[in-house]
């Protein structure tokens, strides 16, 4: 036991002494999470609109009034369709509206007017949400007999606030990344510095060294998570938590060990820190893709959905969401704990064995 704590203490001291690493970890857990939360915007914002109005004003101007800041920039008038097309081509305008000469006349007569829309579909999500705004606006003008009013009840995320969700997802991805890389690096550093043999020469059971080294990095990741949740998730984004915070910490602890297991595997294969970086990316990307962090699992191809059962991050994300947003009672969280724990322990044992062969 003394050996275990000696190694843990040493690794923590070494971590604190390498201030660059401390900075990177702090940055990842704070700024990175904050930027992901506040930076990624799915609603239209500052969308540039251009129009050509040959209808003589009136209805067209009324329509254009609905496009206002902050979602849209003030619409810009163009003299010809050619000029508008060119502006869309040059990425100056995302949405171009063309009001024909007889647009208003037709509208008044038989109410079947046509409004031509040029859409820069490369900014796909912004363009399509803008389009749905436009349809809503146009719908208001047409007196249809079909009148159904939608009354929405937003569940779990009452303000439909995207930031909290993005920030939390990013925190979980960062946890994955750092638990893998930090763990791999503490072993590979020994290879690089030539202290590997010295470490092996200690008359100490290899298991306690491996366990202690990965445990020390799990501690660092846990501290990072607490800082991140405290300052960014709760502090900056004011995310509500409906479930048990303690349950989240336990889940995160298991998950950090899962990452450490992958890190052990990487460390066994990599020769230097450079290779750790390369290998970690190759291993982590599918893990994150399959977790539902970027695409909801139900939207995936069926066999990808099956594969996603293997990604421990999937259980971690779903579990964390349930704790934060749904407020699921602790006992009902067992599928997520079971998922993280079973996939995690399999990965840890594989990594442990792989690096154990080098001892």
């Amino acid at each position, binding site marked *: 036991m003394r*050996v275990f704590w000696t190694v843990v203490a040493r690794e923590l001291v070494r971590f604190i002494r*390498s201030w660059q690493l401390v900075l990177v970890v702090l940055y990842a857990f704070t700024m990175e999470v904050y930027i992901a939360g506040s930076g990624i915007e799915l609603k239209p914002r500052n969308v540039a609109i251009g129009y050509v109005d040959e209808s003589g004003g009136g209805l067209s101007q009324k329509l254009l009034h609905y496009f206002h800041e902050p979602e849209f920039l003030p619409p810009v008038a163009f003299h010809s369709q050619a000029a508008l097309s060119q502006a869309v081509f040059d990425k100056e305008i995302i949405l171009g509206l063309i009001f024909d000469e007889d647009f208003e006349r037709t509208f008044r007569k038989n109410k079947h007017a046509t409004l031509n829309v040029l859409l820069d579909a490369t900014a796909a999500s912004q363009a399509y949400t803008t389009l749905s705004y436009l349809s809503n606006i146009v719908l208001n003008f047409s007196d249809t007999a079909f009148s159904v009013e939608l009354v929405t009840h937003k569940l779990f995320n009452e303000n439909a606030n995207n930031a909290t969700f993005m920030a939390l997802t990013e925190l979980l991805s960062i946890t994955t990344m750092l638990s893998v890389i930090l763990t791999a690096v503490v072993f590979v550093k020994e290879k690089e*510095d030539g202290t590997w043999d010295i470490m*092996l020469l*200690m008359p100490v*059971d290899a298991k306690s060294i491996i366990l202690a080294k990965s445990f020390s990095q799990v501690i660092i990741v846990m501290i990072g998570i607490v800082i991140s949740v405290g300052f960014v998730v709760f502090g900056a984004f004011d995310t509500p938590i409906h479930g048990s915070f303690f349950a989240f910490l336990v889940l995160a602890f298991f998950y950090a060990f899962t990452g450490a297991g992958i890190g052990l595997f990487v460390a066994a294969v990599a020769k230097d820190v450079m290779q750790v970086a390369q290998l970690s990316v190759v291993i982590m990307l599918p893990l994150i893709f399959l977790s539902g962090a970027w695409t909801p699992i139900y939207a995936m191809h069926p066999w990808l959905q099956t594969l996603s059962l293997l990604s421990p991050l999937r259980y971690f994300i779903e579990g964390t969401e349930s704790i934060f947003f749904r407020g699921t009672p602790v006992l009902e969280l067992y599928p997520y704990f079971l998922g993280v724990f079973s996939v995690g322990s399999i990965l840890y044992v594989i990594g442990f064995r792989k690096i154990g062969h080098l001892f």
Partner: protein
Amino acid sequence: MRLVVRDVSVFHKNRLGIAHANFEANEGEIVGFIGADGAGKSSLIHAIAGVIACKGEIVFDNHTYRSCKEAEPLKARIGLMPQGIGLVLYDMLTVSEHLRFFADIHDLVQNEAFETYKTRLLQMAGLEKFQDRQAGKLSGGMMQKLSLICTLLHRPKLLLLDEPTTGVDPLSRIELWEILEEIRRSEGTICLISTAYMQEAAKMDKILLFDEQKIIAQGTSEALLQTVESLCYDPGTPCVEPCIKTLQTLYTLTPLASKSTQTPTLEALFFVNALKNDKTMPPIVLSDKEKSDFDGDVLMDAKGLTKRFGTFVANDNVDITLKKGEILGLLGANGAGKTTFIKMLLGLYPIDGGELRLLGKTIQTPQDRQALKASIGYVSQHFALYNDMSVQENLLYFASMRGLPSETAKERIKRYAQELGFENYLNALPPELPLGINQRFSLASALLHEPVILFLDEPTSGVDAIARAQFWELLKCLKEKWKIAILITTHYMSEAEFCDRVVLMRQGAKIADDTIEGFYAKHPQAHTFEEIFLEYFR
């Protein structure tokens, strides 16, 4: 064709590489740079090769330069072979592909004259039979010869070789020198060669001695030796300070009355320089060890040890015995299987065949290997220790890993620090230490648990002459006071003479095992151990 170096200084960012170097070399001369690692040899070589900017000026063939840009027009006439075996080679290319590649990047006209020259180079290097072999599958010596002929392919008039012979087997070393001798005679090339081996000085026309970023002496080998002839005495001679005593020689600044029987070596110049600058290392004392001795005489006994990696046999049936109070030298070229063998003895590799007995007990299970690890000490090449922890923290960590009670550990660390003279450095980080002090503290970390056997893997490579001499004194002290068995590998042949017994290894097998006296008795015509060593490789 002449090379003149005037007041050249090189800085790597803010760190001094070499200060105020001055020397000249004429057509066809071989100039040797001799000194320890970090003494400034490589910095000067790089400045002359025009790959690093410098202060002062370098004149070659009436063209003056001090930066990479100014040296550009001369590059076609300069050949540089950097330090490290096979560094300029590509593992997957064959020998003939290398020659074609180097001809192409130098944009050489590949006419008949070129072909003749190429064939001649191949013959000199003894590589004409291996033209289709990939460089990665050549031995270290062959790789080094291939690097040399690739560097010679564009017929440089100024050839710069940075430690071309370090770690190369002795036969290839001789062949490398033969190629150089031939080239400088037929092509009139100026050759600048750095080396850590004093013995190679005899083959050089002029020698520059490097110490602490300065050239401390230069001239022919004979002239240099003459300057120190009257300053070297037998170790027993009484002497007033200042003087330095090593196992073989006593160095002083003022000639003594008694007659000297010593023939000085170039190392003497380093000692005299140290005396002049009043920088001697702290002395070493050693108190008795606390643990009681093992009763038997044979500490470790290995019979028929074999190690295989796949189909490759790294060690084949090696026998070795380590007796109490004995220094055993393990000698062999790079790739001879020394490291694999030591790793087996250390318990790092499982043994594939044969039997290893430690303190009369056979090592079989992994538990046995743990016991093995507990009774040996090990100092690796480059004194690998944790660079982000202070000397004191390093030692405490190792003590704790070895399961020493913390009181005992603190007490021993304090004692070693006093006795081995690194007391003032206890709070420094290892990279800040002078190499010689680093070496002592590495040794201290290997001695904390009072092992019965000490393994030292090239502990003296790159360390300057003085630190090396003191290190050997310390080993002798350990052997006498602690009756410890020491197994040491080295590529300084002169150090073999300090060992009690020497084992020679070649291609994974033991080819000789005898006492130093025994070796000399078997080879009465040999003057130095290097000559004996060569006998076994011919």
